[in-house]
């Protein structure tokens, strides 16, 4: 599994983990992100159970395990958080931040030690040391209870499934040619995202944020102008489609 530094300042660092060439072929490749502050760290969408060993091995090369005091699960999907039962043993004192609607569902993955901190529908913020992170509502994109993580200082938006593309594990980390990239993400957004209204609501919300880097859970990171290109493209895209999405895929 590869580790990539996305941002570094005196107060904190953003790392991305992904492109795991040892993962079984049958499971989708995922990007995991971590924010490391002075004494704490937030691990975001830590991934599926199949990925746990690779993920913890990668993380432990960067920081001691007990520094990870917070976990975040954008929603309830298995590729996001089915590793919870194992993290629960590795980080018994940690707090998991996740949508309130999924609390009793996510606990099915096994959670005897970790504390669940339910994020309300309108979102909330988390302060770790000197760093403030915002949980931005992204409901129905694709899950009915869903959040992104925004860091105003780093200008990074961890966008979960929004901006995701289904690609091979050797794909570049950043979107280079936006127009070429559309093909890789169009079907995903049309098929997995159910609501145009929810989508446009999210686009309006994110346009108000200063985003330099948009980091999805699958595929490539959008930087600079590509963030705006994505928002324009996504706003114009009709979602919640099955047959059309399939036919055009």
């Amino acid at each position, binding site marked *: 599994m590869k580790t990539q530094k996305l941002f570094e300042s005196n107060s904190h660092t953003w790392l991305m983990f992904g492109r795991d060439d040892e993962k079984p072929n049958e499971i989708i490749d995922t990007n995991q992100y971590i924010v490391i502050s002075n004494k704490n760290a937030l691990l975001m969408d830590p991934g599926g159970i199949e990925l746990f*060993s690779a993920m*913890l091995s990668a993380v*432990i090369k960067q*920081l001691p*395990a*007990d520094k990870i005091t917070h976990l975040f699960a954008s929603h309830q999907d298995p590729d996001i958080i089915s590793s919870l*039962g194992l993290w629960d*043993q590795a980080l018994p004192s940690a707090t998991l931040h996740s949508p309130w609607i999924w609390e009793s569902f996510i606990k099915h993955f096994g959670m005897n030690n970790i504390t669940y901190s339910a994020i309300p529908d309108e979102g909330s913020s988390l302060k770790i040391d000197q760093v403030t992170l915002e949980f931005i509502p992204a409901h129905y994109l694709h899950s009915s209870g869903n959040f992104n993580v925004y860091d105003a200082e780093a200008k990074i938006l961890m966008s979960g499934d929004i901006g995701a593309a289904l690609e091979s594990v050797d794909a570049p980390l950043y979107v280079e040619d936006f127009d070429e990239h559309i093909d890789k993400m169009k079907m995903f957004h049309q098929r997995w995202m159910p609501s145009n209204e929810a989508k446009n609501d999210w686009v309006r919300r994110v346009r108000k944020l200063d985003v330099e880097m948009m980091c999805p859970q699958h595929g490539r990171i959008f930087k600079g102008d590509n963030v705006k290109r994505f928002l324009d493209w996504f706003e114009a895209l009709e979602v919640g489609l099955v047959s059309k999405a399939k036919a055009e895929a």
Partner: protein
Amino acid sequence: MSELSNNYFVSVAEIAAKLDQATHIAQQLSLTASNARAVALRAGERAAGFRPLTDFIDRLAEITIKSSKNINKLAAALSQTSADKERADSAITHFNIVFTKAKDSEFIHSLDEVFERCQKKQQQLNQSYKRQIFRLSDELAMLSSELRNAVILATLSRVEASQAGIQYQDALINVADNVEGAASKIKDHIHYSQQMVSILEEY
């Protein structure tokens, strides 16, 4: 008889299911005892020797139901322990991979404490597992021994049935057959469970 599952926690669930069937058969045995009592009453004096036997059938049914329920509880608890054990074993396996993959990391020892805790938990679960297997095995042996009486009971019932006169003879022989049949079916389930338990003892 199905093959023992490769996963011990699945095998334990299968034992619980088998013993649940045994409970149902024992409940049928209890109905047989009520039926036998009614027939013996109708047969009057000629079935006088049969009537005390119905009490024994009742008692056998009662013991079997009680023991089957108890075994069921033990098997259900064992099933839970097995699932927990599987989870603990899986965590240890994952941690061992991390210790190999990230052995050169300066932070690798930050996992020592949680790893030790997992090992301790695994040991506790192993001990519970062994203790529960032992109790299950013991209870199965006790019930099996009780069911040996069913054969004697069936034989005695046949002898007494032959004295009850042609009108009631067939009904009472049928009672004897039911007792023997039910006991035999329950014994099959117990035997199967005992075989499974003996394999599970090796885990």
